[in-house]
């Protein structure tokens, strides 16, 4: 196995590790193994190989993505707000994005049990193993932190000089450590209190909620320019001491503005002390207990639940919507898997939640200073803000691609052994099920909220947007590779061709929205548009399902 730079760096600290009870030689070996495996992340196994060599670059690509996101926090530094406020927002973005990455991408690493079965029978103790895992995570997290914070670092240094650079860099290390330790401690508590299947569910929901919160928060940050007129004076309040962003923002006030008030100094001390405290807590609490409690993830003594009412309801709708028995079977099948599989939910639910929330964030643009709530609502009902629903359309459309993914993608061999002469019922059943289970309820919910705010005059628009959404959905479906549902593994990060399709769907959605807007100004424009869109979507539906087995990837 190759040598890695990280290992050489760690060698310098080998005595520190030894003294704290970690077997350095073993630690080094395990880390070397993990890094080697990472550099060879095996591509998903399917016949068409245009994804062949991309996995080495996947991580680098995701770094680009993170840098792009980091640009927003960088831009904040340029605004004319007080340093404390700006850095609060900047570090806020960085911390939230880091935590979401930590939770969604690295949870699997942190909570991996399979590895224990390979390594524990060897003379490796739990402490060494856990340390190896954490170092591994911190290593990647640091790269990601640099990518996220890079823009801010550069912009800030250009504006404020070397002092900024040094402080920020040091803080990045502290922030990184803080995020890792904090998340691990959180997980330890969850693991200690709950167990088995319940635990996995809780972790899953936790992940989903946090991802959603992050998405929303991130969007709100984008509105900071609207709100900047409101937030000018910063009066120290006691609850500021609880905000991690405040801790990390304070040293900048201290160093760059020479603000030596007790408030700022207190917060700066927190910035240094709290990561160290969490490191100590980590060593005391997590390291001894984490690995033991992890075993709980293996024990599933749960009894199944039979929710018969829902099942009856589902089977009735299945009967209504599906034309053949086979189709109905796949409808049911999709309902079951999509409803139960955690990993799929983790990928899907945040997008759904985001889709629901987008229109309202769009509506925030209606807020002009100095108006009352009633006036703002009047703004919204008169204005085109309900077009925010098109964002919902985009988000929902892109979720269709998740249908071909599953954690247990290896189970897809079963498709090949079934006596089906056409793959059409599979696709039809699955797509219908997906639409019924996720798309329609979400759209209904969101549009009702919009109607409540904007008034009933937008109802025809809502109907039109629904028809247009079907068009976008089918468009994405039709242009995707024809892959059977639940047939491939999740990509470690986003992959190129998917992104391309998403951009294309942006254009289509934009075009449809544009047409909608123009036609809405004519007297019968809307009705005509609804008719046209409905016809187009029906035609698209028909043509999407002209499939035979040889056109399908499986």
């Amino acid at each position, binding site marked *: *196995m190759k040598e890695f730079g990280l290992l050489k760096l760690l060698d310098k600290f080998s005595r520190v590790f030894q003294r704290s009870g970690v077997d350095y030689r073993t630690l080094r*070996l395990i880390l070397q*193994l993990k890094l080697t495996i990472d550099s060879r992340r*095996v591509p998903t196994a399917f016949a068409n190989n245009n994804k062949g060599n991309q996995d080495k670059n996947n991580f680098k690509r995701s770094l680009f993505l993170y840098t792009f996101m980091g640009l927003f926090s960088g831009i904040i530094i340029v605004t004319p707000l007080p340093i404390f406020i700006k850095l609060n927002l900047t570090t806020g973005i960085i911390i939230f994005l880091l935590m979401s990455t930590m939770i969604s991408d690295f949870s699997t690493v942190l909570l991996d049990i399979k590895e224990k079965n*390979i390594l*524990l*029978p060897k003379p490796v*103790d739990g402490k060494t193993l856990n340390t190896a895992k954490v170092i591994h995570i911190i290593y990647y997290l640091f790269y990601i932190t640099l990518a996220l914070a890079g823009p801010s670092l550069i912009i800030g240094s250009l504006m404020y000089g070397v002092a900024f650079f040094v402080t920020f860099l040091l803080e990045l290390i502290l922030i990184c450590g803080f995020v890792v330790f904090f998340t691990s401690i959180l997980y330890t508590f969850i693991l200690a209190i709950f167990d088995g299947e319940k635990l996995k569910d809780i972790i899953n929901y936790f992940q989903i909620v946090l991802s959603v919160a992050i998405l929303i928060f991130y969007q709100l940050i984008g509105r900071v320019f609207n709100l900047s007129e409101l937030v000018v004076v910063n009066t120290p309040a006691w609850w500021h001491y609880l905000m991690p962003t405040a801790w990390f923002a304070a040293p900048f006030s201290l160093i760059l503005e020479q603000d030596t008030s007790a408030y700022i100094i207190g917060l700066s001390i927190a910035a240094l002390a709290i990561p160290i405290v969490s490191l100590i807590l980590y060593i005391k609490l997590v390291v001894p207990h984490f690995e033991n409690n992890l*075993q709980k993830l293996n024990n599933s003594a749960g009894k199944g639940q039979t929710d018969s009412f829902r099942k009856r309801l589902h089977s009735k709708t299945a009967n209504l919507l599906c034309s053949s028995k086979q189709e109905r079977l796949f409808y049911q099948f999709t309902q079951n898997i999509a409803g139960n599989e955690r990993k799929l939910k983790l990928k899907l639910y945040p997008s759904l939640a985001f889709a629901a929330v987008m229109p309202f964030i769009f509506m925030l643009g209606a807020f002009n200073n100095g108006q009352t709530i009633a006036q703002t609502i009047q703004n919204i009902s008169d204005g085109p803000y309900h077009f925010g629903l098109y964002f919902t359309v985009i988000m929902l459309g892109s979720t269709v691609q998740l249908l071909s993914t599953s954690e247990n993608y290896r189970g897809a061999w079963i498709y090949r052994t079934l006596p089906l002469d056409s793959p059409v019922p599979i696709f039809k059943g699955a797509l219908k099920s997906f639409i019924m289970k996720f798309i329609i309820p979400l759209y209904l919910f969101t549009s009702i909220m919009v109607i409540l705010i904007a008034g009933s005059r937008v109802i025809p628009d809502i109907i039109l947007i629904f028809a247009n959404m079907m068009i976008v959905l089918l468009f994405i479906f039709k242009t995707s590779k024809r892959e059977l549902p639940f047939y491939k593994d999740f990509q470690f990060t986003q992959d190129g061709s998917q992104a391309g399709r998403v951009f294309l769907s942006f254009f289509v959605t934009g075009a449809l929205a544009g047409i909608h807007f123009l036609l809405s100004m004519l007297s019968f424009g809307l009705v005509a548009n609804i008719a046209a869109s409905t016809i187009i979507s029906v035609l698209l539906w028909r043509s999407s399902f002209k499939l035979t087995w040889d056109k399908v990837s499986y």
Partner: protein
Amino acid sequence: MNQTGEAVIKISDLKMRFGDNEVLKGIDLDIYKGQIIGYIGPNGAGKSTTVKLMLGILQGFEGEIRIFGEDIKNGSVEYKRRIGYVPESAEVYDSLTAKEYLTFVGELYGIDNAVADAKAAKLMSLFGIEDVYHSRISTYSKGMRQKLLIISSLLHDPDILFFDEPMSGLDANSVMIFKEIMSSLAAQGKTIFYSSHIMDVVEKISSRIILISEGRIVADGTFDQLKEMSTEGSLEEIFNQLTGFNRHKEIADEFISVISEVQP
């Protein structure tokens, strides 16, 4: 079988529970050098739990487990250097080559990299798979993986071996080689824990058979001793009798009749 000296493994009143479920209800066991223990029992009886506890993969048991005279609860992992394990689930790091994996394992056990490499290469060639020494394990067939696992469990010349269905996937020739290896190891004074559901193999190779059922040991002795305990002839039948199972014909008949029912 001669039982000379100290017990290599000494288990006293071992109990283990998962939540409300008491999986092991008080196991007492003394294992000596040179014994090949056929460790058998129905599914869920507690076989793999016992093994995992001994290996330190699971924690939280009551009672005492002493390996090489040391209480494993004291947290030291030194005893693991002298243990080899072939798990049933055949988990390996697929994306590595055999060379990388075996040298990694060897180094974990404290063997020098070059020494481990040489040993591993030779063992691979003895098993007939030297061609794939530098290929990724993900490309291996089931039989090749199994051979790799066996090698990885023996590379460091351990004194105790835990084999769980070690011959699954091996062809008849390799099976014969493996059986020979096991009896030579035992003759050298190594101890082997052999767990399997294939009764005729267990019957032939074990010097001592331990049957565990519902968390307790229900039989412990040589095959001949067991035959005296029960009225049956083969180990399979003894197993059935001692675990209170005699409905196999009934169940099989019902199974067939359900399958061949006319579709409504």
